[in-house]
């Protein structure tokens, strides 16, 4: 009738796991002015202010940063997704496959790739790409796009992302925050962070 029972079991298991002290040290501070690599890839950024790196293994080349917590402002780096791979780790390759980035994917299709990934990963229906512009990213021709969606927690979030395909791999950084207050508050910090992104 309602939500999948697997959620309940998973949440309970998570809650149990939370009791163990190891999780407390999972997140890492990303200090101002110190260049760091993203998800063991050649991509580096030099944050202009302190950020927190969230510890959640949501994908092989993916890393999430936040200021106040993932629900309030979330920066996700997709650092070199290979052709044939999805953006995020699939919960079940067979039953819940995610859309794949491919060698034939065009720049103009990247917003759609993020959209379909969000929709199938979060099982949501309300997602709208607001604007798509050509823009330089990592010194290459890329795409800058904005979007808006109603998340699973029934809150409307806004997002902005920069993406480019370099050497056949997809590089993308996205910023997601609630439309109310948090998006406007964090977007400039995000843009400053994106400006410092470099590939060797």
């Amino acid at each position, binding site marked *: 009738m*309602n939500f999948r029972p697997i959620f309940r079991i998973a949440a309970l298991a998570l809650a149990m796991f939370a009791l163990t002290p190891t999780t407390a040290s999972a997140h890492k501070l990303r200090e101002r002015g110190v260049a760091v690599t993203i998800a063991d890839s050649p991509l580096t950024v030099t944050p202009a202010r302190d950020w927190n790196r969230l510890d959640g293994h949501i994908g092989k080349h993916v890393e999430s940063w936040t200021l106040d917590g993932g629900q309030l402002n979330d920066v996700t780096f997709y650092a070199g997704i290979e052709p044939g791979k999805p953006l995020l780790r699939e919960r079940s390759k067979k039953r819940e496959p995610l859309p794949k980035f491919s060698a034939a994917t065009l720049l103009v299709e990247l917003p759609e790739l993020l959209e379909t990934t969000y929709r199938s990963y979060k099982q949501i229906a309300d997602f709208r790409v607001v604007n798509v512009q050509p823009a330089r990213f990592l010194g290459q021709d890329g795409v800058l796009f904005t979007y808006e969606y109603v998340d699973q927690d029934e809150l409307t979030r806004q997002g902005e992302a920069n993406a480019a395909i370099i050497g056949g791999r997809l590089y993308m950084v996205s910023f997601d925050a609630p439309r109310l207050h948090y998006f406007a508050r964090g977007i400039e910090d995000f843009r400053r962070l994106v400006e410092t992104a470099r590939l060797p």
Partner: protein
Amino acid sequence: MIGRLRLAASALGLALALVPSAHAEPALPPPYAGAYQPQGVDEQGLWRQMDEEERRFAESDMVIRDEALNTYVRKVLCDTVGQDRCGATRVYIVRVPWFNASMSPNGLMQVYSGLLLRVHSEAELGAVLGHEFGHFEARHSLEELKARRSGTDVLSWALVLANLAPSYDMVRAYRDLQLTIIGNFYRFNRDQEREADGLGIRYLNSSMLRPQAAAQVWERLMAEFAADARAKGLKKPRFDRIPFYSTHPPEAERAATLALLARPDAAQRDDGATRYRAALAPWIPQLLDDQIKLNDFGASEFLIQSLAEGGWTAPLWHARGELHRMRGAPRDLANAATFYGEAVALDPNHAEAHRGLGLSLLKTGQPGPGQQALRRYLTLKPDAPDAKLIGMMIPQEVPAP
């Protein structure tokens, strides 16, 4: 074999229990008791909790507030259960791409947008809404509340544990958990489902709609799951993982029961398919879009095909093109180009179909016609969100012939 016998026996037993002599009297709903007020602390508490939830829910960003659509869905409910009963409900359409509907004990009915895409007539929609109304009228949630009170204990423990957790995600997990357990109050057992099925079909029997449509809903849904499982290479569909289905009686039993209980002399009634198609027409493109972007190829292809039984339209061809282009294998792109071509043949002003056609042609090595289609897209929709980027994919000046 034994399982099948038992199935048949239980279906028959239910039919006999509900209709003393199946041939003599058609099954009709019991007389309506009027506006019901909760009795006793359990029920009053449950209603209060649901009233509070409804206040929050009415403000939710997931609710589709379009007046025409809401009026129409409400009308189908009222046509099914009757004007007097329908007064006890508030209908909320939520934009969630699954087959589901639910009704809270205080009369809040949720209709998922995915349900609207999957039923084909007023009678079919009425069958599902009537079933949910049956749970409400029989007050199943109260029985379940009492039976499952231990669920709340689980919730309390989870809250304690969640508070110890350092991450925000944990709070989110707790909230999901809360929804799941509140959802549990509406997870009914099979006997309750059978009773609701019985009530649902009685409403239809006494309405102007064709009760035989109820069995069609389940048959088509089973076919969709089978198609989905086939596309994913699974041995058999997992009905228990689908929200609406997890607690419902086996579909075969259900379809058999519903067919048995449907009033035979009502088989010639109108099922309202034409009216339904007309009312939903403005919504079909969005509902299809919500479905195909779930990356669920088998189910989406099945849904498009089954909608196309009533005739192919430009939005259907376009959706099929999108579905194939997004999967993106070379053969898919060739198919996609054909489907988009069908869409623009039916509706030359379908801007999105020109876009899809252009991209598919470009990707299959046909830049000339591809750019022409993209140019047409920009002419039709100069203020498209991606107009600038698409514009860069077209040479600025058309070479002279």
